[in-house]
């Protein structure tokens, strides 16, 4: 029986030359296929990063035109900026609070959604809503829920006679931070719970059955079986959340814009103000690069520390 087509052609070539020829044509074909995407991504993602990096080492005028190279001058100006240090501390606090509480709250939510109960589909759909609405929409809605004079929370509390005067939530630093962190947690829960839910569903039920047979109660099962098996998912969601939350502009921006006096700013809102409200693109670019490196170091460090050591053997 004659073998036709590619197979036939291949059989005719000597083996070593045949392999090299296929490898070359495979990679050329592959390159051509990805060329348009790489070009687009390069233009839209990498070029601005490169431009920002260059700006951080140059003198930039208020029209964002890059001038002469100025070495580390922009970075040095940051180290003498007390506001910058304060803002970095605030950002770390904001990230730890939001990611920490979100993860703690998402675990029971994911566990609950993993059980089957009537209305489970509805519960899951409702949980998706804050995630589906963009961050801006969420922030704007909460901006009005927390407004000094038209706040629905104040109205309710006053009608229940719990407060006498409206609380100006976004007017003083402490309540403003509580509000900002609260909204941050609210919008991060859907993503985290669904990721954890996916992780939970990949745990086979046989393990749970074996545990039940061995007499493991709810907490032991949770602590010694569920959590360790969810570890990879937890690592991934924590890492992603830290990166998203650290750089999350919409919520603090829409709620307070960093008022009063930079006390509710995070790094990204502060650099946005420096760049576009004050026209200081050089220091702003330096801040952006520092954030980039900070998060890069964190990601690498975190992945390394939480890497699962491969255990040898089946037991």
């Amino acid at each position, binding site marked *: 029986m004659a073998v*036709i*087509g*590619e197979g036939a*052609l291949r059989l005719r070539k000597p083996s070593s030359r045949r392999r090299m020829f296929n490898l070359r*044509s495979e990679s*050329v*074909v592959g390159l*051509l*296929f990805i*060329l*348009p995407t790489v*070009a*687009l991504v390069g233009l839209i993602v990498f070029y601005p990063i490169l431009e920002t990096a260059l700006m951080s080492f140059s003198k930039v*005028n*208020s*029209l*964002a*035109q890059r001038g002469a190279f100025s070495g580390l001058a922009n970075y040095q100006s940051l180290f003498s900026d007390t506001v910058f240090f304060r803002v970095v501390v605030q950002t770390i606090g904001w990230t730890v609070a939001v990611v920490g509480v979100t993860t703690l709250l998402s675990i029971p939510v994911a566990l609950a959604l993993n059980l089957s109960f009537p209305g489970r589909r509805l519960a899951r759909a409702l949980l998706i809503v804050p995630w589906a609405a963009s961050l801006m929409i969420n922030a704007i809605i909460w901006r009005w829920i927390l*407004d*000094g*004079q038209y706040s629905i929370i104040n109205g309710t509390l006053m009608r229940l006679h719990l407060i006498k*005067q*409206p609380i*100006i*939530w*976004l*007017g*003083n*630093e402490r309540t*403003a931070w509580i509000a900002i962190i609260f909204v941050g947690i609210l919008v991060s829960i859907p993503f985290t719970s669904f990721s954890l839910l996916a992780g939970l569903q990949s745990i086979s039920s046989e393990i749970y059955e074996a545990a039940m047979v061995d007499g493991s109660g709810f907490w032991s099962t949770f602590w010694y079986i569920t959590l360790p098996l969810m570890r990879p998912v937890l690592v991934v969601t924590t890492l992603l959340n830290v990166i998203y939350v650290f750089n999350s502009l919409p919520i603090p921006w829409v709620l*307070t*814009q960093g*008022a*009063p*006096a*930079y*006390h509710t700013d995070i790094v990204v809102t502060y650099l946005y*103000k420096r760049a*576009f*409200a*004050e*026209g*200081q693109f050089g220091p702003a670019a330096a801040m952006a690069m520092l954030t980039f490196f900070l998060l890069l170091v964190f990601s690498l460090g975190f992945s390394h520390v939480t890497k699962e050591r491969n255990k040898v053997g089946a037991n």
Partner: protein
Amino acid sequence: MKSMKRSMFDRQSRLRRPALALVFATAATVVLSSLGVSTAAASSTVQLRFLFPEYSAKTAPLMKAMVNDFNKANAGKIKVSLETAPWDKMHDKLALSMGSGQAPDVFGYATRWISEFAGLKQLAPIDSLLKPAFKKTFNQAVLAAGTYKGKSYGLPVAVSARLLYYRTDLFKAAGLSAPKTWDELLADAVKTSNPPSVYGLGVPASGIEVDTFFDYFLYNNGGDILDANGKSKLSSPESVKALQFLSDLVTAKGSEPNPVGFTREQIIENFKAGQLAMYPTGPWLNAMIQADNPSLQYATVPFPTNNGKKQQTVAVTDSLGMSAGGKHKAEAWKFIQFMYQTKYRQLFDQTEGMLPELNAVIHSAYYQTPQYKPFVDALSSAKFQPQHPKFEQIQQIITVAVQKALSGIATPKQALDEATVQINKL
């Protein structure tokens, strides 16, 4: 047996994958490049680009009608294309277009940006184009606001002067008359306060124009932002007293609580809804009240001064200028003169609630009504914002100082001293 007709795209062809890849790559490249190609129409008509900021939803149609009239009158010779942008995006838009060498031929901008843009050589001086006959049609005080280092860079296109709006009904009920001094202002603010339904003086300490709000107090106590040498004057005793007074007023519950939680827009809404007894702002509030709450009883007076100091009306102008790199300056100037005909300026000023810069409009019946006459008269004591190339940063610095003082983070003196250090470093 397979048919002998073979093409590159046959399933069996060794060349199928490379061929398909090449086709896709070429198609993608063609599509992407065609997106960026703009073929310049070859014609002898001069094309002008005109960028104007949106003062309200009515700005764009108003300007469009005027531009259409001009294009019709100059058909075949000059064609103006209009672009509008909201105010909070204007600086970015102009900065970006100037930075890339594509500034519009004619554009509106905030006069406080003159020093920045002129310093970067992006504005065309108009002294040589401003003939005496045309120049005389303007109110000279307002026209002078558009000069920097002795050269004129723009014509006033929107003028506002700020007066104190107050509720005549609330004042009558409390047995008070309009405040003329700061002592009266403080007493009236506290007396008309009836939390939580009414507060005395609206104090916006968040968002834009917080520094302008502080200027009402600063100027009317004889203080100033910059001295004659361009250095900060915010640490002078008069300036510190101004911020101290504002801070005391807030502490004495003469304003809404926690002013840092309120933006200018919110305070304006509150005044319109009848929840504030006093608020200083520009003439547009007249039109807004007329539209949203016509039964509100109010009047306007010049902002109170402290201790008999000279009355200063905070006035802000926006300017219309030409790009220094524009290639058709003569045609651009022709368009500008067309735009400054009395009928167009009257319509613009009335629709947007602005004050007039042309003498003809100032003396028109509309601007001599009780609602507008106080504003127009106040132009003679107008004080404009100082010219400084980094004025946007100065505004931020002042805003931060005011917020610190009003939230108790620092005393007024500390906050203003910090501001002085930062301004002098610019």
